[in-house]
């Protein structure tokens, strides 16, 4: 295997000079910026997210304007009172249409009993709706209590709300009381990590497959095989591209650490708690293992395929295993300890993504992580061995659309 380093170097060079690689590496930091600094920045300046147009309020009695303003403060909105006559309401509706107002809250007489309406252009701002509805509902209740003559103090005590706070239990019985926003940030960052592993694994896997099938159809492979063994060629490609991937992750991880540890404190915002060296190490570990597993499979499929289109068809079942955990991601996030999560975090084709979610959200038992890693490493070895055999036969099989049955037969060729 003396020529292997030469092939690795060549493939690494080809890959890092590739436009897609450069663009992805350059765009990565923006994604990292988004997951490290942006959540904090947004919570400091909510107008950036909502646009900050005021809400018009018609009717509802004294105090309603102030109550709604307080409730929608998270979006940084002001509230303007408008008249209850038909003309004022029609004007306000026009201004909602034109975008001057974010919404019009219309509470006509008798709203305490029959409720009112929220006019918006989109009808999709669920957070605004929830906030306003809570205020209107609460005010209506208070108004009805006043009307019934019950002692306001008693009424207040009876209708008082209580909060449910989120406390995250860490290893060693540490308790971390985080606000809701902390939880959302963790979720947001974990999802970004998972997306990163999914995207890069898919991208690099497909690049290997395409590179193999292109060399096969252009007959470059004949020249290569007159100098090196099929095994050297395949592993040279996989390792060369893998090194390029590692370089990319190295750049991203350093940037993420620099941003969260140096830049974020400097401008006075808190980086998401998930961004810490241990979690970044998990990110890289699972990317590497996922990459080697899927790269081996794609190399074998590329060698068996007749052209790129055929490769696309052959790769579907493989792709499905990458997509399934992504589709079910919310289930893993809300129930990281469910038996489905546990099984899929140990099954090698899905484990890199599912186990990564679990590690980030709620550390699973050590034995499960060990089992996951053990099975995954064994699978990488098995996949690489099988791929090398399929590759050896398939790469020179011209003008034939191989089936999975034939590939299984190739596994048994000497």
């Amino acid at each position, binding site marked *: 295997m*003396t*020529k292997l380093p*030469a*092939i690795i170097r*060549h493939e690494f060079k*080809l890959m890092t000079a590739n436009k897609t690689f450069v663009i992805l590496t350059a765009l990565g930091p923006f994604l990292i910026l988004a997951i490290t600094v942006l959540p904090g920045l947004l919570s400091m300046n909510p107008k950036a997210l909502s646009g900050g147009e005021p809400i018009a309020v018609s009717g509802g009695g004294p105090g309603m304007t102030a109550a709604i303003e307080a409730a929608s403060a998270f979006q940084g909105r002001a509230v303007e009172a408008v008249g209850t006559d038909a003309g004022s309401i029609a004007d306000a509706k026009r201004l909602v249409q034109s975008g001057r107002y974010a919404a019009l809250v219309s509470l006509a007489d008798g709203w305490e009993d029959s409720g009112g309406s929220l006019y918006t252009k989109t009808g999709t701002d669920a957070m605004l709706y929830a906030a306003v509805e809570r205020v209107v509902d609460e005010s209506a209740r208070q108004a009805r209590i006043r009307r019934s003559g019950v002692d306001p103090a008693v009424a207040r005590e009876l209708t008082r709300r209580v909060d449910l706070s989120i406390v995250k239990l860490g290893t060693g019985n540490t308790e971390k009381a985080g606000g809701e926003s902390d939880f959302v940030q963790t979720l947001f960052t974990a999802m970004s990590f998972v997306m990163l592993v999914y995207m890069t694994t898919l991208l690099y896997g497909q690049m290997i497959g395409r590179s193999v099938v292109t*060399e096969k159809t*252009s*007959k*470059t*492979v*004949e*020249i*290569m*095989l*007159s*100098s*090196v*063994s099929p095994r050297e060629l395949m592993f040279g490609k996989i390792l060369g591209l893998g090194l390029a991937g590692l370089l990319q992750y190295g750049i991203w991880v350093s940037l993420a650490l620099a941003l969260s540890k140096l830049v974020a404190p400097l401008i006075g915002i808190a980086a998401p708690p998930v961004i810490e060296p241990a979690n970044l190490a998990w990110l890289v570990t699972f990317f590497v293992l996922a990459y080697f597993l899927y790269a081996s499979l794609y190399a074998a499929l590329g060698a068996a395929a007749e052209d790129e289109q055929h490769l696309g068809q052959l790769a579907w079942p493989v792709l499905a295993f990458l997509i399934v955990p992504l589709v079910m991601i919310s289930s893993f996030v809300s129930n990281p300890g469910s038996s489905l999560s546990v099984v899929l975090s140990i099954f090698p084709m899905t484990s890199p993504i599912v186990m990564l979610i679990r590690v980030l959200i709620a550390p699973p038992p050590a034995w499960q992580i060990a089992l996951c890693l053990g099975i995954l490493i064994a699978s990488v070895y098995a996949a690489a061995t099988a791929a090398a055999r399929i590759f050896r036969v398939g790469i*020179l099989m011209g003008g034939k659309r191989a089936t999975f049955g034939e590939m299984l037969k190739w596994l048994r060729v000497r």
Partner: protein
Amino acid sequence: MLNVDGVVKTYETVRAVDGLSFEARPGEIFGLIGPNGAGKSTTIRMIMNVIVPDAGTIRFDGKAFSESMKARIGYLPEERGLNKKVKVLETLVYLGVLKGLDSKDAKARAEAWLERFGLAEWKAEKIEALSKGMAQKVQFIGSVVHDPDLVLFDEPFSGLDPVSQDILLDAVLELKRRGKTVLISTHVMEHDERLCDRILLVRGGKELVSGSLPDLKARYGENSAQIEFDGDASFVSTLPCVESVRAMPRWIEATLGEGRDSGELLAAVAGRLRVRRFQMMEPSLHAIFVKLVEAAGEAEDD
């Protein structure tokens, strides 16, 4: 150097190579000749161990193929396929390194070859910037940059202009002078006539005839007339003394029938054409090939 013995390769139902045997020696140019689809490329791929024969053996200096031998063999496949996105010199250095050269040595040799082929100023260009002929020359260099003992050229001259053909021809002859074993496959017989010491004519995966060119020609005797003329020579093929013709607008090669005399032909053409040259000679390789193929075809028809 190279010994091929009874190799057979069957694809699905087609027997591409059917029991070919030959030997190529050091300092010799061996021609594998036949029409398209005769099994030449398949044979060369088997020698290169790119595909495995169903039967028969291939030996190098008496030994079976092993990975380490790849460093001593150079291979120019029929289909050109260099990575288009890589620069010329980089491609050649990479190919050289894969054959076991260190990169400095590979670079020096590649540059010398590029100079010789008039491609020195293209070395920093990507392969995709080259013309087809230039790319082919680069690939030729790639097959000899590591100074192999055995080179396999599959249709090396196809698609090259006459000047490039001559440069390549010189390079091939030099390899022969330096004691290398050269195996060339082609269907352009003129090249073999000028180049090859010995040949093997193949058709349908089987040997038609083999041997040294002079022996082969002597076997058919001086029964071929080459005539240069002005006029319409279409009648020649209908003459009773003529067995077969190969006609060009102002040149014709007529093979005489068994026991026929050249005087008979000369008399027949002298009256109807303005003959500028009339020469009895050994048949060209082309004529021999056509004759053999026709004979084989008749045998199949019977």
